């Protein structure tokens, strides 16, 4: 009981903060762990360039699109994600990836919402152009439980506003992997091994959860995560290509406006995190400009 109370207290303490602060802290810790213990092939210059370019692009976008305030938090989250995932021998590519990630938020939009997760899009553009690569096996299996704890911590601290995305994606993905193993007659050590992946956990807790690129309503999010899980397995076991979840998210992201149209919910605002329930006046099933007036819009 004391433990639960302690968690609640910690959770309350963090409630006053922006959830992205915890994301930045978690991703930076994971990056530091990767650099110091696992000897990731990421130079300090690459990290500096990625963060620098992301912030500069965010600032340029803020000016160009005349946004009311420069908000660096999302750019920092995207930059940390790129440093964790992207490997390249060219510093120009590292900067390019950061530029693509942040610029995509301002340029690829539909109904005042960006379509692609910035980190995801940049990673796949770079990988497809053979400019860099992603090492999904880089974390190994040794530190998996530590990883899980760090990731679960994010659910507590980020007010669990998008916990449904993580939980439903992982639920669908684990269920489908287990079903495949049972159908093949494989021992369960195989799906377990496939799940013991740091890359999968980071994707599930920090990438797919981006409230700006997932459907607004809970039903929409559940449908979306099921589609992503199915597409991820399709990429891996039908097309036999690596990075299944990343490709799946990219493929399914353009479906979000359609899902939002069928299952409307309130638009997410980092300053006022919500679970997406519509306020009573907006409950009619018609697609209307949602909660943020255009003069106060945020691109983050």
């Amino acid at each position, binding site marked *: 009981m004391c433990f639960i109370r302690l968690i609640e207290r910690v959770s309350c303490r963090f409630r006053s903060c922006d959830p992205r602060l915890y994301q930045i802290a978690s991703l930076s810790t994971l990056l530091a762990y990767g650099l110091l213990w696992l000897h990731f092939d990421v130079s300090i210059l690459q990290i500096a360039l990625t963060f620098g370019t992301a912030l500069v692009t965010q600032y340029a976008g803020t000016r160009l699109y005349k946004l009311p305030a420069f908000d660096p938090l999302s750019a920092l989250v995207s930059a940390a994600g790129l440093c964790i995932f992207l490997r390249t021998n060219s510093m120009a590519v590292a900067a390019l990836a950061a530029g693509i990630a942040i610029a995509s938020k301002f340029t690829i939009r539909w109904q005042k919402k960006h379509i692609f997760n910035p980190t995801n899009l940049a990673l796949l553009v770079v990988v497809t152009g053979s400019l860099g690569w992603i090492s999904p096996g880089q974390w*190994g299996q040794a530190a998996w439980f530590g990883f899980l704890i760090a990731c679960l911590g994010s659910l507590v601290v980020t007010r669990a506003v998008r916990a449904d995305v993580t939980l439903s994606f992982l639920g669908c993905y684990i269920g489908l992997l287990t079903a495949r193993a049972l159908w093949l*007659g494989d021992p369960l050590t195989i799906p377990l091994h496939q799940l013991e992946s740091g890359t999968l956990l980071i994707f599930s807790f920090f990438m797919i959860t981006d409230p700006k690129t997932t459907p607004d309503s809970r039903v929409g999010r559940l449908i979306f995560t099921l589609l992503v899980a199915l597409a991820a397995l399709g990429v891996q076991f039908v097309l036999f290509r690596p990075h299944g979840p990343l490709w799946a998210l990219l493929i399914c992201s353009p479906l979000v406006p359609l899902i939002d149209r069928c299952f409307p919910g309130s638009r997410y605002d980092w300053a006022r995190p919500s679970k997406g329930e519509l306020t009573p006046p907006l409950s009619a099933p018609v697609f209307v400009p949602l909660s943020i007036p255009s003069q106060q819009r945020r691109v983050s």
Partner: protein
Amino acid sequence: MSHQDYEACEDGWAGSRQDPHMLNMRLYVPAVLFLVTLLLWNGTASAFCGFYVAKADSKLFNKASEVAIARAEDKTVITMANDFKGDVKEFALVVPVPTVLEKAQIHVGDAAVLKHLADYSAPRLVEYFDANPCRLLYPESRSMDMMGKASPSLQREKALGVSVEAQYTVGEYDILILSANESAGLETWLTENGYRIPKGASSVLHSYIKQNLKFFVAKVNLGEQAKLGLTHLRPLQIAFESPRFMLPIRLGTVNADGPQELFVYFLTRQGRVETTNYRTVRLPEAQEIPLYVKDRFGDFYRDLFAQQVKREQHRGVFLEYAWDMTWCDPCAADPLSGEELRSLGVFWLEPQGRPGRGPQAQNVFLTRLHVRYDEAHFPEDLLFQETSDRANFQARYILRHPWTGQDECTAAAAYREQLYGRYEQQAQTLATLTGWNIGEIRKAMNLAARPTRDENKWYQRLWNN
């Protein structure tokens, strides 16, 4: 970062200072501090390549298999080395393959080419000789950036649900391509036809059948072997087109007596290959080790590898070599010629007008992976991806011979003084890399007999008394 970017960056900071949201300001300070700390921490690695003295042969390891995979645009050629030592009548090979192979897709290779590839990419020992400190600048100031970073009855087959999709005799081998409806039938068929299948293989076969894989099975045709006058079995090669980039290891782990060793050599167009479902780890390299290891390099490398396997909790795949095929430095063997590479399946190399060796090999990147696997730690088949990483890497270990001249000068005294520290460092490195006893290492180096720096305490050196 360009000058313009820099200015934009400065504008960014100025903009934030004008921003009434103090949160932004609070963020900048830790972010900048973090970046500055990381920049300060950055170091440069330098290495120079030395003279080649020895290599660690893949034959050092028991139960080692060697496979070469040439791949580009989903077109794959697999060469399977065959070092079968027993009675050739007993030899049988069962490999899951993604497609039914035609006769032209099966070939018998040359063991010598595979051996050449193994020698070229082997972990190596190099040596340097210190120069006279009285005449030259100490060579540590030099740096080179080279390292960068049979035919059963048809009825029986039907009853067992096994179909012989194709049947060929290639060289000294009889080859069958089988497909099956269910694993028990396939297992029975293989057993009845003289293929020794380990107990428990049924579930693995079942999984492969469900994944729509076919089975490439080979036996030695004794008549053909006698006709060819061969005393050894040559490597089998298969060529197919499939998006699957994997190596099935699960059949080999069933009922295996201890872990097995696998060397995979990838010949690709773009860059280094790594595993996507296991961690690929670079072996420690460019480490200075004691001179006496020269005669025990095989033992050294075997123990170093065992130590690294332990460190990765038996779940790592190790990178031993990654290099552009056009050159090597130092060379454990000459780079392979265009003809040799083509014989290993490098189809994107155009045949040369004239035969023979030469520096014509272009656009071929070699990756050598070494894995020690068993069922407990490697439950899933190895899945690979080709990356765009063309940074060179080699498992290279260094012997540095001290200068033994008699010249006397201040530099020579300082040089002799620091030698003891260097020997101790080499002993520590060797112990860490191999897990060998530090005491025995020191003994083998005669370190105990040497005066140590500790005999002159710091205060004695301070006042010279």
